[in-house]
């Protein structure tokens, strides 16, 4: 009986994993297939010469180029905001907070991680209105507010992954530097943080994915269907997830829907590239730590 139960558990786990893998494969392949079908250079750059568009010599009106740039800027600025704050908070929780504070704040950040993004979007929207009243004509819905709101949205991932990475380091590693005369911050900066790089970057990769796909937050804080390339952080912008949402709810011809799939394909490629970048950065940091 026990042997049967054990076999059943193994079979069930395997079956669930296989099912999940199958679903992911179907969705990815379908998006790639439909997207690649509609994919062309003119889809990105419209009628404009790619070089002119990349150098900013001519604006692109009927292509996805501004949306790609918008998403890229959005993700990078959200991570630039969230990473330092999140890592610092994670360090505090893992290494400085008293046990009671650690439990309380960890629970709080878990709740924050579960907060629907539309709620954070609404908060961003409210702040935008307030700022707009304070500085009429100068601040409205824009890239900066979207990036800050998205940064807030992904903050818990960075905090918790930093905290977990630091807390799961073996006690022997934790004690090595103090026994050699390291002060607490020296131990964190020179040993514990470098040793947790991969865990922290795991959180940042999760944050990149979340920031790149989120539509609810940007919908309320600055994204528009047509804006061209943003010239500053205080302007409205285009973004791929919003384009996908917009085109799939408003399409009139099959071709327009195909464009949505192409945009989804581009979003996948963009996320993949950012993941690769983060992974490359991790390898680079690890090498630097070991051999310099």
């Amino acid at each position: 009986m026990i042997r049967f139960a054990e076999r059943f558990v193994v079979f069930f786990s395997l079956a669930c994993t296989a099912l999940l893998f199958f679903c992911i494969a179907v969705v990815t392949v379908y998006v790639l297939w439909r997207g690649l079908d509609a994919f062309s250079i003119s889809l990105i750059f419209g009628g404009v010469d790619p070089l002119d568009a990349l150098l900013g010599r001519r604006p692109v009106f009927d292509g996805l180029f501004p949306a790609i740039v918008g998403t890229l800027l959005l993700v990078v600025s959200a991570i630039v905001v969230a990473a330092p704050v999140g890592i610092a908070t994670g360090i505090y929780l893992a290494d400085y907070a008293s046990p009671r504070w650690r439990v309380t704040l960890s629970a709080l950040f878990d709740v924050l991680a579960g907060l629907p993004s539309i709620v954070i979007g609404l908060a961003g929207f409210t702040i935008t209105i307030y700022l707009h009243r304070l500085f009429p004509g100068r601040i409205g819905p824009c890239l900066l507010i979207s990036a800050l709101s998205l940064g807030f949205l992904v903050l818990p991932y960075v905090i918790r992954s930093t905290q977990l990475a630091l807390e799961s380091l073996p006690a022997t590693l934790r004690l090595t530097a103090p026994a050699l005369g390291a002060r607490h911050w020296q131990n964190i900066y020179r040993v514990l943080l470098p040793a947790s790089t991969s865990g922290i970057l795991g959180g940042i990769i999760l944050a990149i994915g979340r920031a790149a796909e989120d539509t609810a937050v940007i919908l309320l804080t600055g994204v528009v269907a047509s804006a061209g390339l943003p010239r500053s952080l205080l302007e409205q912008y285009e973004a791929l997830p919003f384009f996908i949402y917009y085109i799939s709810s408003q399409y009139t011809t099959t071709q327009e829907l195909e464009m949505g799939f192409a945009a989804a394909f581009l979003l996948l490629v963009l996320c993949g590239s950012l993941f690769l970048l983060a992974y490359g950065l991790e390898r680079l940091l690890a090498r630097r730590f070991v051999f310099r």
Partner: protein
Amino acid sequence: MVWNGCWRVALCFDNDMASASKIITRSLAFSYDKKTLFESIDLELPEHCIAAVTGPSGAGKSTFLTVFNRLWQEFGGGNVSGTVLLRFADGLVDIYREHLPASELRRRVGMVFQKPNPLPMSIHKNVAFPLRLAGHRKRGEMDHLVEKALRKAHLFEEVKDRLRADARALSGGQQQRLCIARALMLEPEILLLDEPTSSLDARSCGKIEELLDDLKQSCTVLMVSHYQDQVRRVADLVFEMTDQTLIRSA
């Protein structure tokens, strides 16, 4: 932290009989969560000797070692009472009474653990690490000091061609000698060794025992060991931790 002793006792040690003792404890006790691990330990160790502590597992031998570099404070909890005096080049220091920062103390009292613990860095970086922590930056001088420490630990010849290789790729015995070299980098006056050979094979073990004899010239060694025959071979003074205290063995 609870303190029972008084600082005048320390002064009287200084004037009277402690002139040659490197490590002195008076009524030393340690408790964790109100459970006493050991108590009433009065110890006097002369300079340039190897003192070994034996005893059953779980008797608190490792914790006893961490009393001398205050490393137990890193675990949180725990309570020391009594007096611990260490004689450094600049005089007798009461390590729990005088405001000596832990980092400062640990630069003078080196420690090597039971399991080799090289940091995930190159061999060179590992050995240079304590000096870097102390703020030394000169590269040329550092190379020289790293070589010197590795030679003291009888490791230089084996690794001189791969100083920039990952330290974790070394064998267990080499890793342990690397850790000893790293601990020697700051030229500590006292070296604490927590069962330094227990995770090594007989050959590596022999090499470390050879090394211990050399170390005696430059520092006072306090070690914990499980192996009676090893203790007999290397130690000048042997103590046994039993019934929550430390007694001198024949």
